[in-house]
């Protein structure tokens, strides 16, 4: 029943998409200034139907309709209600449907909020957007149908992968998809702009809010994934340079570059083709990321199924997108001479873009290099954190200094620098860094530079904020994001240098002491929960220095559907540090392997990222007020 409704809705959506493209082309020939009302109606209808389609799938998960394969494979009648719902997008088919929904809704919003722009520009953008929508709908209907049925109807579902049953992961896909899919709008708009040779400034105005939306949500989506990895994977880290994490980071770099160069296009009408390239690149990277994690080329929790036909479909789709956009770009590309003054905001923004592209290439290389070596030489290599850390970290230092100075410069030509202030801030940063070393502990030379440069950016941003308040202006969006980025690097640096990690074996009743800490294994008990059984350890952590005592309860969970064992870290988060314990059983003994970690400032790392994205939202609200 639900399956029939879902399939019908998908089919109707395809028909609507095709008719929309037809009417849009027809509208191109009309002489009026406005887009015909029909198109608004079809778009609204299209969005409504796809939302109903998604709710149909949610309903199937909620009522545990195991006649639908997707529900059977990813849900279980005993699963908590919340995870039944999040299970809707916790699988390949459902998450693709989520893509299609966001694509469709954004397409409608673009139509609504671009009224001040040239009619043909809007029409071509909608045509491209609807081709993308159709591409995804065909994929859904014919290859990855979330409403496929299974006969005979199974009595019980196989269950959602337990490690995906986590609140952070429930919100991670929707957030990330708003980022990924949001970039489709400026991909379509860029193609449209190339086709009709649209004015650069107007183009920048029409897409800047979309860039802000996708960038802000992408940032939050990456954060949610990272928090999940920290809590759920049980390794105590928050970023592993895993290819799948990288796949979400790649479009983020392109978006960040775009966010900045768009300002130059809007203010000075420069970098038009560069902005177009970034628009195209962002969405292409988003689809590439989807291809990499879904096709099975990369092995990860995101690889829901190992079906090469899926990868092939996305690859064909991706290739068509790339070739169409590259050939169009080649045809329209005109070389322009910018004559930038080296000491101007434009140059600094260009420098920002160089950094972003450098990071992008580094991460892209590290991510796809193993795929290439395996195909070309049949040799498996893995590119791990040492590569990224050694390439990216030293460059971050320089980047932070540029990031501090860039906003201080003026457009066209900067008259003078406040050298005096710069030196004062640098000295203050160095002094604070030495204070940290003096009061706590010394660290490597490179860490010194990182912390000094992060402090430099933080202090500069604070000073900007102070000036802003003095002038009673309220546009703090840039300052908030830059300040938060400085804070992020600072806290990551401190976290890296002040973390304590101990690995040892304990059995019940035993105690281990090291530095100022003692860890005592007090108790072990077995408990039964709704969808799993758990072996729960009770560990008492004492800090002799400040008489602090904490009790942590790491778990080994045994899930029945599907049969999986997961190791749940027990984490005590505090304002200054997190205590983190995982335990795992050891074959043939009553000892447990215990991993104890002290991770300073973890919560501040998360907060910093929230504030980075908050900057994007603030700017969005400001733009909305201006009524673009």
């Amino acid at each position: 029943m639900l399956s029939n409704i879902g399939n019908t809705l998908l089919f109707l959506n395809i028909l609507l998409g095709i008719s929309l493209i037809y009417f849009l082309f027809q509208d191109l020939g009309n002489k009026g200034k406005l887009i015909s009302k029909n198109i608004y109606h079809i778009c609204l209808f299209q969005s409504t139907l796809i939302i109903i389609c998604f709710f149909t799938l949610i309903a199937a998960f909620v009522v545990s309709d195991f006649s639908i394969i997707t529900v059977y494979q990813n849900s279980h009648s005993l699963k908590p209600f919340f995870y039944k719902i999040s299970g809707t997008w916790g699988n390949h088919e459902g998450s693709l449907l989520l893509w299609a929904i966001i694509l469709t809704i954004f397409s409608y919003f673009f139509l609504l909020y671009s009224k001040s722009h040239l009619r043909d520009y809007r029409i071509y953008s909608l045509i491209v957007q609807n081709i993308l929508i159709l591409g995804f709908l065909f994929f859904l209907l014919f290859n990855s149908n979330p409403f496929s049925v299974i006969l005979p109807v199974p009595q019980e579902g196989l269950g959602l992968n337990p490690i995906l049953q986590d609140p952070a992961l429930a919100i991670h896909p929707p957030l990330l998809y708003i980022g990924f899919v949001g970039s489709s709008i400026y991909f379509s708009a860029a193609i449209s702009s190339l086709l009709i040779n649209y004015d650069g400034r107007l183009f920048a105005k029409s897409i800047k809010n979309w860039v802000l939306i996708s960038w802000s949500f992408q940032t939050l989506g990456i954060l949610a994934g990272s928090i999940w990895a920290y809590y759920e994977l049980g390794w105590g880290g928050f970023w592993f340079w895993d290819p799948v994490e990288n796949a979400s980071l790649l479009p983020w770099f392109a978006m960040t570059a775009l966010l900045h160069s768009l300002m130059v296009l809007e203010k000075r009408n420069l970098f038009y083709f560069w902005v177009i390239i970034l628009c195209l690149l962002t969405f292409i990277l988003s689809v590439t990321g989807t291809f990499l994690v879904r096709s099975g080329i990369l092995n990860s929790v995101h690889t829901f199924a190992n079906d090469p036909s899926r990868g092939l479909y996305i690859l064909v789709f991706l290739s068509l997108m790339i070739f169409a956009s590259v050939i169009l770009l080649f045809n329209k590309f005109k070389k322009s001479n910018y004559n930038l003054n080296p000491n101007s905001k434009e140059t600094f923004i260009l420098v920002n873009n160089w950094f972003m592209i450098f990071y992008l290439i580094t991460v892209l290389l590290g991510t796809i290099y193993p795929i290439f070596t395996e195909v070309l030489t049949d040799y498996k290599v893995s590119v791990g954190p040492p590569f990224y850390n050694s390439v990216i970290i030293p460059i971050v230092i320089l980047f932070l200094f540029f990031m501090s100075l860039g906003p201080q410069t003026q457009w066209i030509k900067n008259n003078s620098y406040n050298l005096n202030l710069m030196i004062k801030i640098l000295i203050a940063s160095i002094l604070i860094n030495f204070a940290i070393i003096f009061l706590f502990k010394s660290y490597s030379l490179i860490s010194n530079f990182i912390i000094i440069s992060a402090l430099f950016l933080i202090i500069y941003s604070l000073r900007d904020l102070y000036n802003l308040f003095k002038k009673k202006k309220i546009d703090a969006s840039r300052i908030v994001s830059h300040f938060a980025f400085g804070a992020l690097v600072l806290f990551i640096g401190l976290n890296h240098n002040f973390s304590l990690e101990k690995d040892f074996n304990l059995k019940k009743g035993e105690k281990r002491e090291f530095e100022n800490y003692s860890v005592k294994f007090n108790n072990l008990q077995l408990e039964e929960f709704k969808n799993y059984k758990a072996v729960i350890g009770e560990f008492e952590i004492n800090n002799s220095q400040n008489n602090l005592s904490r009790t942590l309860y790491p778990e080994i969970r045994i899930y029945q559907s599907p049969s999986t064992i997961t190791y749940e870290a027990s984490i005590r988060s505090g304002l200054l540090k997190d205590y983190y314990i995982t335990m795992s059983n050891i074959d043939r003994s009553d000892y447990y392997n215990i991993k104890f970690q002290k991770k300073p400032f973890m919560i501040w790392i998360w907060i910093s990222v929230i504030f980075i994205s908050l900057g994007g939202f603030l700017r969005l609200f400001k733009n909305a007020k201006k009524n673009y």
Partner: protein
Amino acid sequence: MQKKIIKSFILLFIIFIIGVFFISLNKNSIYDTKGLVGQKITNVQLDHFSKNKMITEKNFKENEFTLINFWASWCAPCRDEHPILLKLNKEKNLKMLGVNFKDNKKNAKNFLIELGNPYDVLAVDNQGKQSINFGIYGIPESILINKDLIIIKKFIGPIFESDYEYIKSIVRKK
């Protein structure tokens, strides 16, 4: 001319990348036990428990069905499933291969003397390395394969009565 060369170079580069992606699509690099069902097992090289010989996939080809059971004397759930394995041993079309996993040989022998030996062939994987090729997370786990070496089903955890009925229904169909 120079422009054309640059453009052609860019296009060729894109084609190269897409080509590599295409080839790698058909290479399976997934380590997922669920995905193993329906796949053919290859490259099996297990040491025999008591004789100085290797057990390879050729040994499975002689049987209609083979149940590969990974067990150890130190594993409590293996004890639970043992009576069912003994029952399965009576099935005509089914041969049983036991893989003794990271175990002490003497304890393993005592275990089989105490509870009975359900295995037609017994192999040993002291380091647990060979078991990785079968996608073994932990033990007990069992894999049912047919004559063509295709994995029909994987049983993670001990074999229950319902699994016994399932295996019985499959092997008796033949």
